């Protein structure tokens, strides 16, 4: 007989009680990055751009928590200050992906016919483009820097989102509740953005997280190639390149921003997954 394991009856009243520890840590890190981006100058007592010619590439000390880089700048202050560009760019990319895929994806999926065909052929065309290559070429030619890179990522990132949201919309469109609303004369835009939109919100949110993490890594990569943030700005990707040369004098100068990129991207993905699973579970439970 399968012995019924008798567990002490747990009261799980609070919502927070069920958040796994990993997701809690991920939230903590994202919040910390947010605080650093907004109030970074209040946390650090050393300016991220102040050069100290007497302590170049030193290991961590009491004053320089993560040591200094090749120009004698405080690495900790620069990591804190770098969170601004690490958050803002990806946030813009993810928001544009959320809005554009929400608007265009639902519209194409719901309307079908010519609208759908044209949209999807454009998306197919964009899929065929080598995105990263185009970004590198354009940013190099125009000498654009950070915001141009963000702009191009916004455009190149949206195709996958649109495809995803369109197919999610197609699945919703076939459900009786959508047909019932059509029959009762609910306006088209309301069915699309109020009803279908609300029902596929978990997918949109998960997609937002994926976009954010992808853009973070892509922007860091571009900065590493010298195609993102201008030299001199505190940017995690840029710090990786700059401090690569002093890897053996102060490894923290390159490791800290590198770790920050990895942990932030992972955290956002974990949170996205968690939100998606929870919302989906809520909608499945009927």
């Amino acid at each position, binding site marked *: 007989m399968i012995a019924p*394991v008798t567990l002490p009856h747990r009261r799980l009243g609070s919502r927070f009680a069920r958040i796994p520890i990993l997701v809690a840590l991920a939230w903590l890190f994202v919040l910390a990055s947010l605080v650093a981006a907004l109030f970074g100058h209040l946390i650090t007592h050393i300016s991220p751009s102040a050069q100290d010619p007497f302590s170049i590439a030193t290991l961590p000390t009491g004053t320089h928590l993560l040591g200094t880089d090749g120009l004698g700048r405080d690495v900790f202050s620069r990591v804190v200050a770098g969170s601004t560009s690490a958050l803002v760019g990806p946030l813009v990319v993810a928001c544009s992906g959320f809005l554009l895929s929400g608007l265009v994806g639902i519209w194409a999926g719901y309307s079908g016919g010519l609208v759908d065909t044209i949209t999807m052929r454009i998306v197919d065309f964009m899929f065929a483009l080598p995105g990263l290559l185009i970004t590198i070429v354009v940013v190099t030619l125009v000498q654009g820097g950070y915001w141009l890179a963000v702009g191009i990522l916004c455009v190149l990132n949206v195709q996958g989102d649109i495809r995803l949201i369109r197919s999610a919309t197609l699945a919703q469109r076939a459900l009786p509740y959508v047909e*019932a609303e059509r029959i009762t*004369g609910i306006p088209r835009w309301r069915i699309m953005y109020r009803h279908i939109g609300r029902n596929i919100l978990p997918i949109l949110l998960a997609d937002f997280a994926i976009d954010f993490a992808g853009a973070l890594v892509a922007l860091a990569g571009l900065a590493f190639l010298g195609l993102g943030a201008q030299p001199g700005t505190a940017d995690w990707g840029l710090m990786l390149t700059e401090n690569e040369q002093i890897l053996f004098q102060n490894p923290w100068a390159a490791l800290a921003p590198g770790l920050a990129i990895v942990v932030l991207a992972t955290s956002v993905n974990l949170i996205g997954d968690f939100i998606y699973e929870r919302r989906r579970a809520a909608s499945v439970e009927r």
Partner: protein
Amino acid sequence: MATHDAPLLELENVRVESGAGRRGGQRRTILTGVDLRLMPGETVGIVGESGSGKSMLAKAVARLLPPNVTASGRITYRGTELLSQSDRSMERLRGSGIALLYQDPFTMLNPLLRVGDHITEGLAGAQGRRSRRALRDEAVRRLAEVGIDNPDVARKYPFQLSGGMRQRVALAAALARDPDLLIADEPSTALDVTTQAQILALLQSIQAARGMGLIMITHDLRVAFSVCSRVYVLYAGSVLESAPAAALAREPLHPYSLTLLVSDPPIDRTLAALPVTEGNVPTPDSVADMCGFAPRCTWATAECRAALPPLVDIEPGRRSACVRVSEIRGELRRSTTALLVEDPAASDAAAAVADPVLRIRELSKTFTGRHGRDVHALRKVSLDVGRNESVGLVGESGSGKSTLARCLVGLETATSGTIEVVERSDRSGGTSGGAREQALHKRVQLVFQDPYSSLDPTQTVGDAIRETLRANGYDRTALAARAAELFDQVGLPASYLRRLPATLSGGERQRVAIARALAVEPEVIVFDEPVSALDVSVQAQVLNLLKTLRREFGLSYLFISHDLAVVRQVVDRVYVCYRGEIVEQGAVGEVLEKPNHEYTKQLIASIPRAADEAAEVA
């Protein structure tokens, strides 16, 4: 019935619950204190509504419970205690000892395996190595046993077969290792009526020929009576009554069994009102320490709510869990007939429609397929619905009845023919030229079959009603009052307006769907199988509601269903649809009693023997 003394399967005090395993979560009781005994070669029915735990019982016996669901108690098969067996020895037992047949023939078969492979897969493992040729011949022989005589079928893929054929294949696959116990979980529910009858007859003949034990799990008492010798009635996780089928049909010994018996509408007459049991099936935990049926029972006293009554022997072979059975026995027996009062006005339905509100003329719909293979879903269908009339449209799946409904509300565009809706003269036709189609489908509303997916799950039902009212130009200041009024009309408390669909039962959701259709103030409401997804005891509530609404508000209905008994209760006239054509029409009593067309006769003949007929035989 076999006469061996040792039972084939015996369940003692079986309890199934979820959330008790390692994964934790909320503990929920699914079944509690279930005793069951099956002799070799016997056929036993387990009858219950959704949520009664009947499918979990089957899974517990086969040890196929989902993760996080555990069974305790004793399940003994041929003297072997099953719950303590290792997974490996259970694997050997499944198929060769205990086999399962599920409800849905569309997902039960592996779409990538040929029909023959489904069967030989079981054969090969059981009887050692055999030549491929011998296996193929055996598969063909096994298919013949389930009534598939064409040997070519063995080489086909499941998608090339109809639902009934697939169910036959699934049965042959389940029988491949010659089990002596078959558990069939709603084996005919997903099929058309005519196919359903064939599958039930097949199950019965195979059971008799092989002398195997059969447990038939169903929600339909008629099905259980037609196949089983004994019936267990399951409600909210416990057995309320067990009895020989014929005895149960004649005289139920539990009020719930009575409910099941009388809420199944009769085919041979129209009732003034269907006997209704208020409320819904409770969860086992909410009725853990009382009689499960007490909250809905008209005979319930304090005694019934004091403790969970045990199943006790009333007479040989008959057990009931009703504590008051000796007092109310006579009343129960009388109620089986007294509650079924015939509607005297039912028979004189007008044959001709005097004042038509919906006029369909020669409507055709052709779906253009690939390679020029067109599907003619509707062929020159003409149909009238008179004002305040209820018209039935019956037919099997694929007969085109749902296509007709979709054309009426504008979800599909007909290929040719006309649909005309006559507006009431006192209503100003406020439709401007451009919005013709829009206008048509606002005057015809549709209530869908599946109440679980026809409401937006993210929206409260009150918002859904108010949104519908607003979209139809209703005065904004009166929205809330009108929504409450509509809920009142469909028998829902106004407090439900704030609820999400997920918190409502199927019957309540269907009421919301009806309220939403009423909000548009249509001339005609089309019901597409509105009760086929509901439990029998809830079905009666909704059917009565439809009758009341029609009487009070002068509504006109087009009622689409495959269930002739249900149609008989709510319509005046009926059209029989077969392969996209109307093959017969007339007053419902006449058509059902004196069918002319071959297809109509077939439909009527394939209804499982009803309770009262079984009683007559006994």
